[in-house]
């Protein structure tokens, strides 16, 4: 009798806990709609920014300088009276495209190096590992600043420098995943079916480490965006009249002291939203990769 009395609340407790755990798992497996929506919005703005902008982002109106947000200028105006919203929308392209280029190039190069090293092993892997060590020893931002100093301003030199300096970060992560995958018996089984190494890598190994590559790419995007914004902020990248978000943060500095932080603030917020969204997505991908990894 007393057993049953005790058992009832206990089983209810267990059920509740199980339900909560199932709920948590359900939440984790639901696609991150909000994050995806933000990314979609960023893509749209990057592609169609100039047409979405309500006003000409470069039309100077000194009489309307440093205005707070109003119905005419939704996010206010900067020190030259240019509409901040229009500038943010047009600046999205360079602000997002440059890190995207860095991400794509670094991910491709890094993954290829990592997979070749993991597949061949032996001295090839040794050479790749040493090469990555050398690249690791250069801080990315420093290399980019150096490149800008040597080759002059503009984004090309810093983007190339960042492409190179992010390679080892991608390669290190992908290599460890590829080495683990390479050691699984099914890869030997494929070798014994007479498949060439390239075919095994392309059709089996790469798809099976794709989640890791994707997560690392998203993280790289966040870092690259911040680094490029820093380069633009320092005036080493795009010229100061550009509407790039990093440049806008720098240009808006002086007006902060005059009580109008809008330009620097909103450009900073745009950078933060992009970086945080992509990083959260990366986290979701990573967690998925951990959950999915066999045994």
């Amino acid at each position, binding site marked *: 009798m007393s057993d049953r009395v005790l058992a009832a609340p206990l089983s209810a407790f267990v059920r509740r806990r199980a339900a909560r755990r199932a709920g948590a798992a359900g939440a984790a497996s639901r696609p991150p709609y909000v994050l995806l929506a933000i990314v979609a919005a960023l893509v749209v703005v990057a592609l169609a920014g100039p047409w979405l902008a309500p006003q000409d982002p470069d039309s100077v109106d000194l009489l309307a300088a440093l205005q707070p947000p109003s119905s005419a200028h939704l996010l206010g105006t900067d020190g030259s009276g240019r509409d901040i919203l229009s500038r943010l929308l047009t600046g999205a392209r360079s602000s997002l495209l440059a890190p995207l280029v860095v991400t794509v190039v670094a991910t491709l190069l890094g993954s290829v190096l990592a997979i070749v090293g993991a597949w061949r*092993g*032996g001295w090839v892997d040794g050479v790749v590992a040493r090469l990555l060590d050398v690249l690791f020893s250069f801080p990315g931002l420093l290399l980019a600043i150096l490149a800008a100093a040597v080759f002059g301003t503009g984004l090309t030199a810093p983007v190339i420098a960042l492409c190179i300096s992010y390679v080892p970060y991608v390669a290190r992560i992908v290599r460890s995943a590829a080495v683990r995958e390479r050691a*699984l*018996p*099914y890869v*030997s*089984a*494929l*070798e*014994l*079916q*007479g*498949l*060439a190494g390239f075919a095994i890598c392309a*059709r*089996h190994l790469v*798809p*099976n480490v794709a989640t890791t590559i994707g997560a690392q790419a998203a993280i790289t995007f966040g870092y690259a965006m911040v680094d490029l914004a820093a380069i633009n902020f320092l005036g080493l990248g795009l010229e100061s009249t550009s509407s790039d978000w990093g440049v806008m943060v720098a240009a808006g500095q002086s007006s902060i002291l005059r009580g109008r932080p809008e330009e620097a603030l909103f450009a900073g917020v745009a950078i933060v939203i992009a970086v945080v969204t992509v990083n959260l997505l990366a986290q979701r991908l990573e967690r998925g990769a951990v959950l999915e990894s*066999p045994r």
Partner: protein
Amino acid sequence: MSLLSLRELTITLPTPVGPRPVVRDVSFELAAHEAVALVGESGSGKSMTVRSLLRLLPQGAQVSGEIRYDGAEVMAMSGRELRALRGGRVGMVFQDPRAAVNPVRTIGDFLTERLGRGAGARARAQALLEEVGVPQAARRLRQYPHELSGGLLQRAMIASVLAAEPELILADEPTTALDVTTQAEVMALLDELRRERGLALLLITHDLELAAAVCSRTLVMYAGGLVEDCPSRRLHERPLHPYSAALGASRPDVAVRRELLPAIPGRPVSALEAPPGCAFAPRCAFAQDRCREQRPPLRPLGDDRVACVRAEELTLHG
């Protein structure tokens, strides 16, 4: 002319204390259409020997001796020749089918990997699955490895080997990962296919009865070396090497009621830690001083071969 011939195969692996042999002076031949079993305890070098036949060895492994397949030296083959050998003339069935199949691809993808794309390959894969006794083959092609039982998956594995129409099948404990009832079915299937198609088979197993049932000849390995090579039937009745005899004696027999099964004293040693002299000497009931001095070579004795200096004087029973 033998299909496969090994001569003084020695495989050395790098260890923290320097290179050490894991397989020592293994020589044997396998004729076309012949079925040979390779038995021995875990760590005796069976798998390593068989993997070396297709040059699937761990990084840093050094191979000396000769591995000839149909007259061609395997260790000297180019990548292209090696792939032709692996995917064409020799097939391998693995111990754990679940580990040997890419878990995120369907069975159909797995089977058509070598058959190419298209409806023809699909139909061929389905026919192969039916041939190895997989029911509802069309549905199985769309399923993932985790949806199949171990037995079915091993059948699919065998189907993938048959797809290449090989002359020789290497089977590395093909039934160890399966449960007992499916073991018999899968083994019967492998045996039947082999006989029908006239394939050669090199079967690694722990199971002496299985070896005798499927293979005409049995090779016994201990600590990286061959200790006996004789017809499977003879191994049961009158083994030549004390190790083969001890292995035979430690099997349970339903006809004899015993409190305890006889066991071989000590533990199996790998080639890494084998003592000088006969590797089995420390555990052997018949060992003499001369056994511990020099490693006895595998020598011919009648039609068979044995690596024991006292083979002539001992009369052993399986």
